[in-house]
C-alpha cells in the first residue's frame, strides 16, 4: 500500500534540487487545451503522455498545465510549448505518441518538431 510517509521521503530526496528549480529561469511550460473540445479530442491521454514521459526521463523544469479553448477546436488536442527566450510553439492534432516525440526533440534536443506545428503541411 502506498503510504503518506513515502511522500515525505520523496520530499527529502528532492529538497536539494528544488531550491534551484523554483526560481530557475529555464522553466519550460507546456499548456494543453482542456476545454470541451480538447477533452473530446483526447487531451487527457496527451497530458498523461507528457507527464509520464517527463517523469520517466526525470525532467523537472517543465510544467504541464491546462488551458482553455484557443479557437482551434478542429485541431485539438492542442499543446503550446514555451521555452524561455524562444517563440512559443503551437502543436496541433496531438496524440500520446506525438507528445513523447515533442519531449524527446523539442524539450530534450531543443529542436521544434515542425511537422506537428500549426500550419505545417503534413
Amino acid at each position, binding site marked *: 500500500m502506498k503510504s*503518506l510517509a*513515502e511522500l*515525505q521521503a520523496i520530499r527529502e530526496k528532492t529538497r536539494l534540487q528544488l531550491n534551484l528549480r523554483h526560481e530557475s529561469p529555464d522553466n519550460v511550460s507546456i499548456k494543453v487545451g482542456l476545454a*470541451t473540445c480538447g477533452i473530446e479530442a483526447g487531451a487527457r491521454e496527451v497530458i498523461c503522455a507528457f*507527464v509520464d514521459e517527463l517523469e520517466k526521463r526525470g525532467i*523537472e523544469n517543465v510544467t504541464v498545465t*491546462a488551458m482553455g479553448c484557443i479557437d482551434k*477546436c478542429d485541431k485539438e488536442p492542442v499543446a503550446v510549448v514555451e521555452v524561455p527566450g524562444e517563440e512559443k510553439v503551437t502543436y496541433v492534432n496531438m496524440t500520446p505518441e506525438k507528445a513523447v516525440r515533442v519531449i524527446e526533440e523539442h524539450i530534450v534536443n531543443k529542436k521544434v518538431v515542425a511537422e506537428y506545428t500549426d500550419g505545417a503541411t503534413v
Partner: protein
Amino acid sequence: MNELSLFVLELAENSAEAGALLVKAEVRLTPESVEITVTDDGKGMTAEQSRDAVNTDYTTKLGRRGRGLPLIKAAAEKTGGGLSLSSRAKKGTRVSVRFIKNEYCPPMGDINSVIRILAICHSDMDFRFEIEQSGKIMTFDTRVIKERIAPAKISCGGVSAWIREYLNEQTEFIFGGAANEITC
C-alpha cells in the same frame, strides 16, 4: 466524449475556469446508478446564467464554449437520469448528475488519469475526490499531499509517480480491477 470520467474532467475544468480554488468531486456507484457530484468555490452564476449553462442547445454550439453541461445532461437523460445545477454568484457551483445503469450508460473510463492530471495541471488548485462503490470508499485529497511534500510541488516526478500508484491501488481495492475497465 462518452466516458463518465471525462464528464468529471469537464465539470472540474468548468470549476477551474470559474476561478475555483477547491473542487470536490464525488462519484457514487450502486448496482442501479452512478451519481457524480462536483462542488466548487468558484465565482458561481446568477439564476439566468445557470439556466443558460444547462439548456443551451449544444448541437448548435459545436466547437464552442459552454456546450459541456448540455452534453452531459443529454447523456444522463438518455439513461433516464438527469443533471441538476445549483449556483450562487460569488459563492460557487454544485452540479449533480445521475446516470441509470443500463445499455445507454457510458463506461467509467480512466478516472485515475483524470484525477492525476487535474492535480498536476492545476497545481494552484485543490481537489478532493471520493469514489464509493458498494460501501468501499477511496479518497484522494491534494491538500493532504501538498502538506506532506511542501515545498516540493505536486507536479514533481516522484510525486506524480506516487499519485499514479496510489490511485491504481485504491481503484484495485474498490473495483477489484483497473479503472479503465470499469463499466456500468
